[in-house]
């Protein structure tokens, strides 16, 4: 990535002013971003003494301990399963809904509201709403499952608990994905659709051979965003309804980093987990930024 610049005639001269304009952002970043990040890096390589707060340098020991810990490997597995399911299901459903909406909402895009409003619901609140639907003793959907002969109990069964948090996360994420797919499908040139129709392609065929390839950049971008969401925003859902249980089945990586840091007071271990998560976000951000940079065309003279 490079720093794009307007031509020399289109910039202002100034020595102090640009720094003054940058100062608030740089000050807040220094205090609440760079300092904690540096401190987190330091903690990851030290063993903290909880009483004095002084650390002993231990090199990669925190990371070795981390990857030797079965619970951590379990949390990685749970996170991958959760992220894969949420991204896959939420994107598939959103694409189908957007394709359907494209046929219907031609003149009334405001009907989008019916699908996009959950975007505004906090993950923790979404979790509470879905717990009420699926709670083993009074959830309405749980009643249906019981009547169908299923022993549904997310409070005791790890798989059921995972299904519960996936349902809440998908419900929220479909709305976000729908916004992008709907916009992408609507921007497919009409002439292409018409040409395919003249060649005798039916609506499903046109969707597969014309629309899908043209919205694939959007799908790629959404895949990255959905993974970021599933890895980080999921905290609220887990903390509000399962607290990582039962038996650690829903202890996602972010949730574990929080518990180890704030409840077990294992600063070194928690910081090491943060570094792993950081690396993960770093990779996803670089991929995503590359995509945005390609997408935007700058007016250059």
């Amino acid at each position, binding site marked *: 990535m490079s720093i794009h610049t307007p031509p020399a005639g289109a910039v202002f001269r100034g020595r102090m002013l640009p720094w003054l304009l940058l100062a608030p952002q740089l000050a807040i970043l220094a205090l609440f971003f760079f300092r904690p*990040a540096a401190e987190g890096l330091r903690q990851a390589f030290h063993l903290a003494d909880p009483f004095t707060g002084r650390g002993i340098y231990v090199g990669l020991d925190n990371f070795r301990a981390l990857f030797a810990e079965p619970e951590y490997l379990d949390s990685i597995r749970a996170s991958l399963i959760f992220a894969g399911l949420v991204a896959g299901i939420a994107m598939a459903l959103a694409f189908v809904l957007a*394709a359907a909406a494209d046929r219907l909402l031609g003149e009334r895009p405001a009907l989008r509201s019916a699908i996009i409003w959950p975007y505004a619901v906090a993950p923790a*609140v979404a979790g509470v709403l879905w717990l009420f639907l699926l709670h083993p003793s009074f959830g309405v959907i749980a009643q249906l499952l019981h009547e169908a002969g299923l022993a549904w109990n997310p409070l005791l069964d790890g798989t059921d608990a995972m299904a519960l948090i996936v349902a809440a996360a998908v419900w929220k994420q479909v709305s976000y994905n729908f916004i992008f797919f709907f916009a992408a499908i609507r921007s497919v040139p009409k002439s292409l659709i018409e040409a395919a129709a003249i060649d005798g392609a039916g609506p499903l065929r046109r969707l597969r051979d014309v629309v899908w390839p043209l919205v694939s950049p959007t799908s790629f971008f959404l895949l990255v965003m959905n993974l970021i969401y599933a890895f980080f925003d999921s905290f609220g859902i887990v903390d509000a309804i399962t607290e990582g249980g039962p038996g650690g089945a829903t202890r996602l990586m972010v949730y574990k980093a929080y518990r180890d840091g704030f409840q077990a007071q294992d600063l070194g271990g928690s910081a090491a987990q943060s570094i792993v998560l950081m690396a993960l976000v770093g990779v996803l951000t670089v991929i995503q930024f590359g995509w945005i940079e390609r997408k935007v065309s700058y*007016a250059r003279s």
Partner: protein
Amino acid sequence: MVRRDPVFRAVAASVFLAGALVMLLPVWYALAIASMPEDGRLSIGSLPGPMLIDTLADVIRDPVIQRQLFNSLVMATAITAGKIVISLTAGFAVVYFRFRGRALAFWAIFLSLMLPVEVRIVPTYAVAADPLAPLIGGLRLLGVEIGLSPSLLDTHAGLVLPLIASATATFLYRQVFLAVPADLVEAARIDGAGPLRFLRDVALPLAAPATAALAVILFVYGWNQYLWPLLITTDERMATVVMGVARTLPTDNAETRWGLTMGRALVAMAPPVILVLVLQRRLVAGLTDVGK
């Protein structure tokens, strides 16, 4: 012309309707539960009823909830305003000036895109607990003792500041300004406009659509924060409404008033949902134009 295929249209209509109903399902039952009498049993056919208004009125009249709503509102608006102001000025500086250290400033800002607050919770908490530690340590070396060090725990500033320490919006403004035709800037300069005048009269109006979209996105983001408020507040009076909902979860005992819990959930999600419904065009344009 594309021939209308009535069968496909009917399928599309059913799919969309089914999707809309599933989206509505959790809220429909939240409404049903909130309008149930204490000893009511819920079934698949339960409908929201007249008790709903009483429950919601009970929730809104509760001084604890009012305080939580106030905290959420302060947090959401301050995050929105703060992030917009610091990002707009920073984006403007990076695009319209050449100065030594520009590349360094740019990369420093870019780096911060990589870390959601969730990733650096423990050290960020330590900073918020004692934000002036390095300053006081430095002064101590110079022989100046300052006894008192302010803490951001349980303050509105503590809720807000760490959450505006990220550069997503700066990059949005950078893109907006980079798309401004160079002729426009040159014309403004020939007319004798200085940078601040140009910012006020040209750049701000051009950035207005992006700002409106950002305002919706950031308000929703701010209102819905959960992890950070959970850490930084211990005082009940500083809790946000989303925290409040997660704390009043049902247990299996009969004492729990689920109706009230659901009423709280409905009140907690109403402001951002209404905002998104009213300003959906801005939201959609903002999200899809930048691919944020």
